[in-house]
């Protein structure tokens, strides 16, 4: 490549990739710098570890990390675990399979806040779920289901919203496996479970990892589901970050933000690695 050609490429990349790197780079840099006391908005601009020491010392910080990790991990695993059998079932088209695929993917089109509203509407104290359970005689009186302390509401919402996404990725991967390979496995005496373990799982692992990583990061950094449907005695990391920021304490917010980014990357890599390990172990 000549210098001239390189210049052309760089100029072409500038408005798109250049802006992405510029914006995200600056945002990440500001977050890191502010967590160390730099770029203070009320004038102070001095390197200090004080904010890290203060924030990491608070119980609410450790709790929010544990909680966000829990929501991220469980959402990612549940979404993928539910999407896998559906993707395999829909691998080969049959009458009605298109409709089913469309219905299953429908929640992707629904905004997260709308999903949260629909959900709290159904599980409300006098909502349809409580009414149905009473009518069936399973519960004697309505139960308070909203903002449950185990975050089951948040997990249901995350799976509702993310399972279709995992399904989309997995359907593509599973459909790419040729019939010949599966027929060969069948001829060699592999049952349905073995065919999954030894053929389908290893061949669709990249799609599965991608789904896991993206769902994990999204669910771990969740704000709106948590605020609307989550437990009131616990905060997610995004919620804690917004809480600090709203008090004008940008440095503490930055500590939470940097931790969130770091743990999201770390957790996502660990999850992807574990998924590969489990699948590899099975394919042997």
């Amino acid at each position, binding site marked *: 490549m000549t210098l001239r050609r390189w210049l052309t490429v760089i100029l072409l990349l500038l408005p798109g990739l250049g802006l992405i790197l510029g914006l995200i780079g600056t945002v990440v840099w500001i977050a890191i710098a502010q967590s160390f006391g730099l770029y203070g*908005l009320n004038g102070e601009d001095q390197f200090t570890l004080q904010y890290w020491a203060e924030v990491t010392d608070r119980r609410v910080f450790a709790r929010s990390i544990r909680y966000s990790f829990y929501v991220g991990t469980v959402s990612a695993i549940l979404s993928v675990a539910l999407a896998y059998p559906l993707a395999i079932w829909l691998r080969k088209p049959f009458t009605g399979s298109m409709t089913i695929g469309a219905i299953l993917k429908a929640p992707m089109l629904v905004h997260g806040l709308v999903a949260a509203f629909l959900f709290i509407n159904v599980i409300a104290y006098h909502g349809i779920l409580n009414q149905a359970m009473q009518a069936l005689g399973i519960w004697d009186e309505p139960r308070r289901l909203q903002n449950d302390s185990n975050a089951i509401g948040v997990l249901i919402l995350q799976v509702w919203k993310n399972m279709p996404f995992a399904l989309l990725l997995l359907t593509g991967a599973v459909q790419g496996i040729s019939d010949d390979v599966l027929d060969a496995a069948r001829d060699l005496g592999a049952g349905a479970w073995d065919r999954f373990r030894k053929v389908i799982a290893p061949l669709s692992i990249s799609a599965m990892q991608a789904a896991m990583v993206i769902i994990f990061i999204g669910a771990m*950094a969740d704000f709106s589901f948590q605020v609307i449907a989550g437990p009131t005695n616990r905060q997610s990391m995004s919620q804690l970050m917004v809480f600090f920021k709203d008090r004008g304490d940008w440095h503490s917010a930055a500590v939470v933000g940097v931790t969130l980014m770091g743990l999201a990357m770390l957790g996502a890599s660990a999850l992807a690695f574990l998924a590969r390990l489990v699948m590899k172990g099975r394919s042997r």
Partner: protein
Amino acid sequence: MTREQLNKALLILLLVICTIWLVIPFGMAILWSLVDPSEPWTADRLLPPAMSFWRWRDMWENSSLQVAMATSYTLAPLAALLSLALATPTAYALGRIAFPGRELAKLLCLLPLVVPGFVTAIFFTSLLFQLGLHTWRFGAILFAHAVLALPYAIRIMTVSFEQVRQDHIDAARDLGATPLARFRVAFLPALRPGIFATLLIVFIQSIEEFAIAFILGSPDVVTIPTLLFSALGQDYVRPNAAVLSLILVVPNVILMLILERLLKSANPTLASGKG
């Protein structure tokens, strides 16, 4: 049980699940949005005792809904156009020029997708404070929406540029077409579905975006998602929230269905006029 019977059984099971999954939640939202304030919908009744469009009219006339819709629907098309304009040169380079590090460049374009939205929102706001630009909220939100949607725009446009056929460009050149004419006859037919798909996906992303609009915009700039968020929080009135939810969801479902059609038609053979 044969395969057909199994499929039939599963189909019925799935229809039941979908009723629980989709029909009940949306059905309840529609019913709640129609509750007439003259008679409250109490728990002992299956359907609202009095139904009307009163809530819809009331929300339209007496809330920030009109302002929010105006903001959202101004922001979204502008963000779509801006994102397309910013993405096109990069997509051209990624789709049509072979240069070392191209795969890395493609990967780096996905960066906005891995940084959590609220981290971007908060520290982009902080950056604007540093630069003294925090009063320029609408422009800042527009800019952020356009840049954060770039991964999608670049990806779609790159695929479109890859599908432009070199022999069409060469043929046009051999026939003496000017650069503009070459673009019109060789590039545009292959790019058109990608352009529409990009505009649509950025439009939807911008309409739905919450973190930036909430952190950066509040309290001055209200979009439909931030309005819905406050309707679900401090001023929760169930019928009003139902109206807002439906207003946010219905246009998007229609747009998404159009998008799916467009992406399906983004076929090189169809788009360039020959196989």
